[in-house]
Structures are given as structure tokens and as C-alpha cells.
């Protein structure tokens, strides 16, 4: 199956390895992955900040860059949720129902499990981990089971749930800089809950959450690492 890779800006700029691992995973799953090098961003940062006029040309560019008929797969639920649920509002005049982009776009784990029906990537990743439900994946895309199904089949990985797995990490884009106290406080409690469970890793579908938690963890020298699910699924083979 041919798929187009969309690389969220965090991954493009800060964690390129995760994009490489996404390709590795998709190829193992039998996909032929193409990457349009013109791509930039889905437009979400400006939209969330209230700058719809600034967002619109970037979102339009996204639609142009991904106008091929293949599935679009992204290692991140936040961008997928944004394109799926908010482009209609951004382009009220454009008949989005005629445009299949929203329907063709998938987050990596939901693509693997729901489209390709794969829940075992043959990965091994020794250690204990908790899964953090990124808000974009969980509430914008309704992704709850796919990452857990895939992680459960990772050899050597013990998945331990926390009570607050669905509670936001506190990042929220500009929120993290506009209200740093609240944002940091949320990260603190998220990390403390993971610490209480004694896990070595916090795994998620979205690097935006992980970047935020990692910033708190590193500052406080806490013995927990963050790991993107694509990196976990690409491990050990």
C-alpha cells in the first residue's frame, strides 16, 4: 500500500529520528512510503492561538502538498485531529466534503491497527513504561486502544497504566509559555504519577507532550525517559 508521510513540525525540527522510525515501521508493515519534501505544517499552532488568517495559507499549503489520493500517515495525533476536525471551520467556503484529505489522514498507530490490521510489529523494548494518552490523539481522534494493542505486543515491555493516563500533560502550545505556572504544574503531576508507578519510560503518540514532560524530567533529574511510540515500535529488529 502506498502512503504519504506527514512529519509534524516538532519531529521535523527536534526529533528527526522518530520520522525515520515511522518510515521503518510503515515499510515493515508493507507500505511504500513517499515523502513530499515541500511539506511544512498543518497550521494548528496559529489556529489554536486565534490567528486563523495566519493559519489559513499554511493549511491550504498542506492541502496542496497532500492532494495525492493515498493515505496520509503521521506520527502524531494532534495534527491528524486538527486536520480532521477543524479544517471545515477554517475553510467554510471550500466544500471540504469533496476533499478527501481529512478522511485519508491517519495517526500511525490507528493506521497500523485499523487500516492494516497489524497489532504486532515484532519489536522488543525491554523495560517498564506507562502510556500517556495525548489529548489530540485521545479526544480529537478517539485513539485509545491502538497504541495499547501495539505496545502490549512489544517484547520485554511491561505496560503499567496510571490513573491519570488521560489527563493532559500541560503543554497546549502557547499555553505552555503564556501560563507557565499552570503548565509546569500539570507536567509535574503527570511525571509524579509515573514516578509513583516506578516506570522507566513514558510513551506516547505525540512528541509535543513528550517534549514538555522531558523538559520537566531533565530539569529535575528524574530517572524517567520519554519515548515516542514510533521509536518503540522500531526497536529490536
Amino acid at each position, binding site marked *: 500500500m502506498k502512503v504519504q508521510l506527514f*512529519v509534524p*513540525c516538532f*519531529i*521535523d*525540527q*527536534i*526529533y*528527526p529520528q522518530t520520522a*525515520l522510525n515511522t518510515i521503518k515501521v510503515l515499510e515493515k508493515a508493507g507500505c511504500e*512510503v*513517499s*515523502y*513530499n*519534501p*515541500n*511539506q*511544512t*505544517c498543518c*497550521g494548528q499552532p*496559529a*489556529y*489554536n*492561538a*486565534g*490567528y*486563523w488568517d*495566519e*493559519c489559513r*495559507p*499554511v493549511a491550504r*499549503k498542506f492541502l496542496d502538498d497532500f492532494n495525492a489520493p493515498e493515505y496520509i500517515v503521521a506520527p502524531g495525533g494532534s495534527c491528524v485531529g486538527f486536520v480532521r476536525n477543524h479544517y471545515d471551520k477554517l475553510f467554510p467556503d471550500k466544500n471540504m466534503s469533496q476533499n478527501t484529505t481529512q478522511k485519508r489522514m491517519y495517526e500511525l498507530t490507528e493506521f497500523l491497527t485499523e487500516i492494516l490490521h497489524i497489532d504486532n510489529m515484532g519489536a522488543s523494548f525491554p523495560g517498564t513504561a506507562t502510556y500517556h494518552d495525548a*489529548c489530540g490523539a485521545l*479526544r480529537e481522534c478517539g485513539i485509545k486502544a491502538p497504541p495499547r494493542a501495539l505496545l502490549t505486543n512489544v517484547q520485554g515491555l511491561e505496560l503499567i497504566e496510571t490513573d491519570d493516563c*488521560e*489527563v*493532559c500533560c*500541560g503543554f*497546549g*502550545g*502557547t*499555553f*505552555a*509559555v*503564556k*501560563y*507557565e*505556572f*499552570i*503548565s*509546569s*504544574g500539570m*507536567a509535574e*503531576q503527570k511525571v509524579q504519577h509515573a514516578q509513583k508507578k516506578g516506570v522507566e519510560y513514558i510513551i506516547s503518540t505525540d512528541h509535543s507532550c513528550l*517534549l514538555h514532560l*522531558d*523538559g*520537566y524530567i*531533565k*530539569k*529535575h533529574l528524574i530517572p524517567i525517559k520519554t519515548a515516542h511510540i514510533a521509536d518503540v515500535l522500531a526497536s529490536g529488529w
Partner: protein
Amino acid sequence: MKRKQTEFLLASGRKVFDLDHRKKLNFALKQADAAYKKGKQQFSDLETTKKIAKNIKWQAIENLHTYLEAFETNFNRNGGRVIWAEDTQQALDAILNVCRKNEAKSIVKSKSIVTEEIHLNQFLTKHHIEILETDLGEYIQQLDGEAPYHIVAPSLHKSKEDVAQLFHEKLNVPPDLSPEELTLVARNILRKKYAAAEIGITGINFILADIGGIAITENEGNAWLSASAPKIHIAITGIEKILPSVHDLNLFWPLLATHGSGQRTTVYNSIYTGPKKQDETDGPEEMYVILLDNRRSHLLADPAARESLYCIRCGACLNVCPVYKNIGGHTYGTTYSGPIGAVISPYLNDAAEYQHLSFASSLCGACTEVCPVHINLHNLLLNNRRNAVEQNLISASEQIGWKIWKKINQHRLLMNWPGGATKTFLVGKLFRQHWGIRRILPEFTHKTFNQFTKNKPDSK
């Protein structure tokens, strides 16, 4: 930065890292969460129930004038009187008029967030009329001289030890009373007041258009007593609390109970359809319903914000909101706190003073997920943000920032420029101060993924 925003920022910092506050709030909200999860089992299909409820509120709000007028006609026929109040002052004047006409010196009041909105207690006290809160949580807050902390649970932030200490200080009772003993202390004081008060004031949970009645939901029986013991009953509410029919309560009573307190239904659910009739033995001689606009018509006028008027004030969005959980109710500096408060406050007040609340959210969507009438709360916050930008309420530097962002994201080459080290330096310069001391900023890699991949043969 506006004064309110600065106050909010500083207060939020104090609250978030006040570990005692965090502990108390987490304790209370964990209990609320457990009760909600148990309570919602009564719905075999909660999502469909919510959709039906939203449709009913949609119908009610889209035809608000029709239903309100129907209510007035029917309530008048029942012998009651409707008072339309465009703003706070008209509502206060109406209440004062009733007080003066009846030479009222003492009032008992049950829980009503609208009376907080119009600052009724302060107003009546200034006019030498005693007004006593009869809901236990509100009574505690009144004793402490504090506004309610939560729409449904006014003293949520106080532990039982805090309440014992407060009663000891204010009511001269021993300092170590149990919750049961404290309740009895309050009950004994309040019982005497019901008998003495000339007027009882209550809120309203639902205005029932078809029968010209009002429905009040409670757990303590204090609203029931406030409405029926004194010879005059004044009920006050916002115009959005309308339901087309008494039959809608089948759906809304359990929805409100489960989302407000985790109950299947609350202990008391009463419908009042007017004053005592000739052949009746109980009830007030006169009954007034005050319908308050107070800029709710601004929400009605904006199709993008209108659904916020579907709110039944259950408080569930506060309970699940990670921001509320961290900063508590008072930090908002508004009558209505939490997600719904952040949504409606810029409309009910000066938008410039309250727009910052719409940005004080990570947009996690937990509020939208829990709302019993499916109000798309986090999308309404996004809408407010857009309004703030369009009304030019955002700093010039941020505006320039987004223009630069747009430029960069329209051109792939600009995203690859000017190298990781320089980007890390620039982002540090721009954001280090706002990122704060509790987190480190990430570092950009030397090359973007795009640059890594560009020369690979498999890229298109």
C-alpha cells in the same frame, strides 16, 4: 497586560504550587470523579442521551423568546409574577422593591450562582437587610466571607478540619466537631431563620415554559424551606435556563444529578408553579420569578458562541478540567469559573478584561467530553481566542510573531534555515523567560528531517 490578566497569572502561580491546596482539591475532585463514574451507569447510552438533551436545549435557545413568553403567560395564570431584568441593577432594584413593600428585614436564600453574579448579598447588606445562605456549603462560605469556590460545591476547597476551625472561630463552638456535629450546629441556626424570614430567595435549575413553573434541584431541603416557609418567594435565574416542557425533566433531572454530584437523582427535586392558592394550606403568598439577561443576549446574538447557553450549570467541566484542578475557583476572578466560565465571561463582561481566560487552557477537551449537553467547550475557547485576535486584544509582539510564523511555514526552505544551533539560540532568547524555571527547553537538531531525507532516492 491587563490588570485582571496579571492578577490571574500571579494568583495561578501561587495556587498551582500550594501543595496543601493541591491535596485538598485533588481529594475532593477524586471523590467527585468516582461518584460521577458510578452515577453515569444509570444511562444505558449516555452519548445518545446527551445528544437528545442538546437538541432540546438547542430548540429552547433558538426559540428563547417564544418559550420565555409562554412561561410568563402560564406563570401569571398561576398567580405568580415575572420580572424581566436586563442587567444587574434592574434585578437588584426589583428585589429591593419587594423587600421595601413588605418591610422585610430578614431573608433566607438557597444556592444561586446568579445571586453571586449580581452580588446580591453585598447589596442587601448595604441596605440593612439580613440575608442568610441556607445551603451548607454556601453558609460556610458566607461565614468565611468568601465567594463560592465551585458552581455546585461552594466550599470544595475546605477540608472538614478547616470547617471545624471556621465554626469554632465564628460561632464559638468547640474546635474539634465532626462533620455531623457541624451540620447540626448550622441546622439549628438556620431553622430559626426560616421561621423568622419574611422573604425566601432561591435560584432556578429549569424554567418550565409549558406549565409556567420552575424546577429546583437540591440535596439538603434548604431550597424547599426557603421557597415555602417565608410568605414571599423570589426565584431568580438567567434566561438560558429554559426548558420547553415539564416532560423534559425526565431527561434533565438525572443528567444534572449525575454530572453535578454523581447521584442518580438528587434528594429533593421540586416544581413550583406559583404562590399558595385559595384552597391550599402551604406555600408563599406571593411568588416572583426574575429573569435576568445581563448580557446573555450577547451570547445569543453570536451563533458561534450561542451553544454556551445550553449550560445547565452542573459543574462537571470544572471537575475534569486540569486547569481548574490546579488553580481552583477563586483564581479566575469571575462568578463562573472553569471552562464554561472562561467561555462566557468575556461575553458577560468587558471582553478585553476577560479574554485571557480563553488562553488559560491546554485545549485538552476533557470539558467537551464530559458536558451533559455536549457543549463544544474547547472549541468555544478557540472561538474566543479568534475573537480576541480580531478585536486586537493581543500584544503587538505576538501579532508580529505569527506573521513571521506564517512566512516560515509557507516556504519549506525557511523551515530548514538557519541551522539547529541558531534556532535553539533564538527560541531560547524568545521563550526562556516564559518557559520558566521548572522545565528546560528542547534543542533543535543540526538538520531537520526534511534536510536528512531530501537527497534520498525514495523521497518524491
